[in-house]
């Protein structure tokens, strides 16, 4: 019964491939340009990352054109690895990436399934394989994003079920390359260790993209953007305080780039609400309700050396 299908396929192949391809038109029509522009506009900094994405997009576009001319038949390996410190935008970029791959036609649906070790590894014998397969099936037609992928491999416990998840993952990454794209993410040094103990992974991943830390100026632009999204703004004094805050915060422990900024702003909004609640007497206008003042930021513990428990030589709380 297989023959019937094969003859159908042969007929499709028999239609002659196009003789020329207009790359510029392809670029415009595929919608890739919009995504790259959006990336440039909405993501602050991350220049090496944007550069790599542009290169990848160019490669995929050319590859697609080659396919139309009948020069290549294989799907290129698209699995990627994002390394970088926390809060450098790995998840955000992964989301854009899935969109980009969808526009280029390399994934059919373009949805992003974001998982960590808990979603893949089971709790008892025989639990891991179905669980991992379930997640892989959900991700088919889209992108599977595995955050902090190195937790899958625990060298200290040889009976750890993570190894089983890795094996299934590798198998599907190889056999179902047309169906899903896997993006691994995590800190650079621990990812390196993970790859050196799982050489199969490194060879199956074509694109390694490193996310640099943000500079102080970039962090400030990001925090301004975050506030703007929620219809808040800084007073000039608060701006200066925020810049100083960023400088202090970077030197302290558990610094997580943009995520630290988000948390700092959440707390500033809390303080602002409290300040308004306690000090306001008359009716408040929209400006008062949407202004973050210097004192809302200065009140942060960061200016006094961070969390007490993190200070060297301090008694543990």
């Amino acid at each position, binding site marked *: *019964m*297989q023959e*019937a*299908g*094969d003859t*159908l*396929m042969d007929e499709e192949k028999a239609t002659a491939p196009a003789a020329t391809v207009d790359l510029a038109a392809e670029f415009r029509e595929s919608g890739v340009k919009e995504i790259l522009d959006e990336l440039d506009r909405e993501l602050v900094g991350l220049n090496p990352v944007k550069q790599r994405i542009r290169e990848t997009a160019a490669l995929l576009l050319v590859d697609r054109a080659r396919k139309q001319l009948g020069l290549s038949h294989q799907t290129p390996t698209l699995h990627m690895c994002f390394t970088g410190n926390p809060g450098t935008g790995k998840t955000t970029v992964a989301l854009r990436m899935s969109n980009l791959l969808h526009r280029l036609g390399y994934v*059919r*649906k373009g*949805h992003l399934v974001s998982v960590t070790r808990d979603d893949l590894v089971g709790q008892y014998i025989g639990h891991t394989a*179905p669980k991992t397969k379930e997640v892989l*099936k*959900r991700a*088919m*037609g*889209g992108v599977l994003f595995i955050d902090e992928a190195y937790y899958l491999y625990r060298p200290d416990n040889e009976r750890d079920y993570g190894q089983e998840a890795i094996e299934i993952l590798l198998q599907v990454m190889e056999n*179902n390359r*047309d*169906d*899903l794209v896997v993006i691994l993410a995590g800190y650079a040094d621990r990812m390196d260790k993970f790859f050196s103990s799982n050489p199969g992974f490194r060879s199956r991943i074509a694109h390694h993209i490193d996310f640099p830390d943000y500079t102080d100026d970039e962090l400030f632009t990001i925090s301004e953007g975050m506030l703007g999204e929620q219809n808040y703004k800084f007073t000039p004094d608060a701006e200066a305080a925020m810049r100083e805050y960023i400088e202090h915060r970077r030197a302290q422990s558990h610094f997580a780039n943009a995520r630290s900024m988000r948390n700092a702003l959440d707390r500033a909004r809390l303080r602002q609400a409290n300040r308004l609640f306690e000090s306001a007497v008359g009716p408040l206008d929209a400006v008062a309700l949407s202004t973050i003042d210097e004192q809302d930021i200065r009140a942060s513990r960061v200016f006094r050396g961070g969390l007490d428990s993190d200070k060297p030589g301090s008694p543990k709380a």
Partner: protein
Amino acid sequence: MRVTQGTFSFLPDFTDEQIHTQAQYAIDNGWAVSVEYTDDPHPRNTYWEMWGHPMFDNPDAAAAVFEVNECRKAHHSKYIRVIAFDPSPGWESIRMSFIVNRPKDEPGFRLIREEKEGRSIRYTIQSYASDRPEGQRYG
């Protein structure tokens, strides 16, 4: 004798690509795709063994084709079908069901005549394959 039942039953067997297209059509309609297998070819055998859960939250049919192939590995000499459930009436009703795998050799059915009172006769059919116990019916 080639067993025909379900949707598309008089077409040649589907290729994986065609299964993918049909399953994608079901998913795009909001139906949950599921894979089932059996070695009892009787047409009134409605409840086949389930191969995993129905795939309620898979947006792409690649998962269905993947499961069909997994099921083929384990039950290559049995009947395997793909069915699509539509939950919109308030219960799971089958909108589509097609066979994607069948035994190499299908021996067909024998006609059984049962004598009843008053010389009347009741007819039924029985598969030659079901002479043997479950699990040993097809090679």
